[in-house]
């Protein structure tokens, strides 16, 4: 189906179902209930899930297939973001040119950096990409302020030319839109106590993510993908067969850079601000962690990893003591306070601690990340013996 084998098509359908129903699936708790804080079905976070999903899928094309660990992919996300905001400022508030330009600019940028960095392999390659990204970040936050907005970030302004658009009216900056449909526009549906938000921007991101995912599957299964896997498993032997692996790895690098740029373009289309810290090594590290956490080289893993990290960041950081007291209020006073004291270090300002512990637990107990670990667990439980060794 669609040029995919049965199993892959099922996986793709599964993802299609997940993203289409996300506004419902991510809001399992009724509005106003004690655990509504765990609901993730609001536009900003849903958009982040799919956008970082795209970023991680792209990263996995490079890292998962070729084994080349780039520690500078955030630079492409950042470059894409800046290109996107400039399109929104100069050309039109319609997001299509911004998204296209982001992808292209990131592609060119990754071509330049990849061409140089791929002269080395292993850790030397990683440090080269890291160095390029850190340089981009440092310059964007300081001397390039006229182009990047510096540490404050690049924003749309009232006075922007937007040559294709009619002049803005009403004294407000127009919001990014798709042919007039604003990305922030939502339809809200309530069923019983549940409230679901169907957001235009989210569905645009989800649609693009499905395409990106489809392309990734095709790449994984193509002869090109096979070649990339050969690069990973035995670079040297590939050389002996007379094949120069560099054009292939460079192509993978540029493709994954374009995925990062696409993610950057979508980010600014949903929320028109590009900050320099998007390029910092911590941001590059985040996508590495997302991929490892979800499962390197698996199709769906990076998306799950991205979701888990973004969920922790956005949900756990917002739980405060006040909320803890409401959760445990059914308990006797002493026990309630005790429970609040126990949980307190892991939420709110302590959300990093939860994240750190999660990283450790996953890698210790689920080798191969979420996908690898869970499928391993599944095999051990249900098919004991058949896959021994």
């Amino acid at each position: 189906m669609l040029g995919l084998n049965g199993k892959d098509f099922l996986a793709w359908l599964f993802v299609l179902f997940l993203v289409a129903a996300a506004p419902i699936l991510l809001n399992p708790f009724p509005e106003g209930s004690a655990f509504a804080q765990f609901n993730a079905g609001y536009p900003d976070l849903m958009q982040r899930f799919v956008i970082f999903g795209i970023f991680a899928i792209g990263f996995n094309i490079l890292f998962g297939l070729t084994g080349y660990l780039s520690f500078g992919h955030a630079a492409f996300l950042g470059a894409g973001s800046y290109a996107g905001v400039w399109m929104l400022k100069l050309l039109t508030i319609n997001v299509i040119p911004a998204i296209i330009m982001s992808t292209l600019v990131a592609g060119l940028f990754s071509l330049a950096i990849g061409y140089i960095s791929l002269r080395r392999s292993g850790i030397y390659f990683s440090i080269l990409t890291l160095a390029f990204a850190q340089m981009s970040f440092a310059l964007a936050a300081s001397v390039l302020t006229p182009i990047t907005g510096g540490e404050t970030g690049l924003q749309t302004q009232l006075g922007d030319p937007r040559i294709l658009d009619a002049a803005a009216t009403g004294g407000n900056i127009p919001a990014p839109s798709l042919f007039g449909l604003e990305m922030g526009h939502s339809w809200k549906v309530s069923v019983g106590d549940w409230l679901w938000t169907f957001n235009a921007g989210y569905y645009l991101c989800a649609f693009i993510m499905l395409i990106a995912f489809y392309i990734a599957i095709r790449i994984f299964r193509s002869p090109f993908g096979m070649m990339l896997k050969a690069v990973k498993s035995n670079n040297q032997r590939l050389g002996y067969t007379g094949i120069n692996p560099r054009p292939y790895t460079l192509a993978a690098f540029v493709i994954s850079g374009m995925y990062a740029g696409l993610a950057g373009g979508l980010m600014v289309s949903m929320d028109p601000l590009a900050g320099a810290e998007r390029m910092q090594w911590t941001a590059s590290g985040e996508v590495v962690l997302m991929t490892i956490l979800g499962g390197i080289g698996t199709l769906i893993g990076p998306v799950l990893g991205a979701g888990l990290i973004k969920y922790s960041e956005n949900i756990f950081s917002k739980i405060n003591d006040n909320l803890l007291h409401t959760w445990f209020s059914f308990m006797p006073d002493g026990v309630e306070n005790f429970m609040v004291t126990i949980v307190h270090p892991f939420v709110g300002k302590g959300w990093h601690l939860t994240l750190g512990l999660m990283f450790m637990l996953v890698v210790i107990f689920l080798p191969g990340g979420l996908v690898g670990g869970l499928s391993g667990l599944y095999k051990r439980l249900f098919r004991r013996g058949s896959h021994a060794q």
Partner: protein
Amino acid sequence: MELSAILLQVLNGLDKGSAYALIALGLTLIFGTLGVVNFAHGALFMIGAFCAVSLQKILTISFTTIDESKTDFLGNPAQIHTPYVEKWFGEAVGATMIDWAVPLAILLAIPVMLLVGFAMERGLIKHFYKRPHADQILVTFGLAIVLQEIIKAYFGANQIPAPAPDALIGSFDFGVLLGFDPGTIIYPYWRIVYFLFAMVVVGAVFAFLKFTTFGMVVRAGMADRETVGLLGINIDKRFTIMFGIAAAVAGLAGVMYTPINSPNYHMGMDFLVISFVVVVVGGMGSLAGAVLAGFILGILESFASMREVIQLIPGINQVVIYLAAIVILLARPRGLLGRKGVMES
């Protein structure tokens, strides 16, 4: 540009370089030789710094007396805190001990860091020698976050001043010594101490690996772990000890750095990237390379921060280390002194 200005930056560079070299030295023992991608190295450096803070806190544990003649900010009688050490050893001796808390913390940091290193290796890293590097990254990064959050929970996020002893505050005028005008080439005493300290530690680690049997076995084990194991030598135990030593080196770098950079829980992450860059530019598996790279990058950074240079190339001070890393890695495929085949695939 005047000669004195250049000499001044060379001095600065040596000092920055010794800091980089010292921080990178511990990492290269773990990363360059044991082959573990240790993202918790910055956290070890940070814990070292907090050994100094902790000792300072311990020495200033105080008993409280109420002074009715003064009031606090709410108008209640003021509480006067007097450290116990001043009560026990007399005011002068107690105050001197508090004043010398940072150098004294070396004595605390060595056992603490060795223990941290042993615990980390036995409890966690041991199981990851044969796992992919990606898994090592994830688990050590997770550990780094956990360690730093624990420090944050106890000490807060604000910086905590941990000054050098009064006797070592102030600076030495090298310029006068060399015949320049007074005040042109001055250098703080503490930084001179730091430089000498770094040299001693670097020398000790080199000597240990080079001239002791233990060191020889470890070096052999790095080159060919299995063969050494087959010879009936317990290489695992030695690797654990190596890990402990690496942690101690990182911790000592942290202790001595506190007067230069008031520690906060985040300082490890700030140094993590630079220490990886130094190790890799130096070349994987080479201790001498890491030290050399530390000094080269330190001196380049110092020169790039001169205002004449910034005027010439705006922003160069922001990127010089990374730019230098790129140039070196492109010119020399395995960094300055790297061994073939270490972490190249």
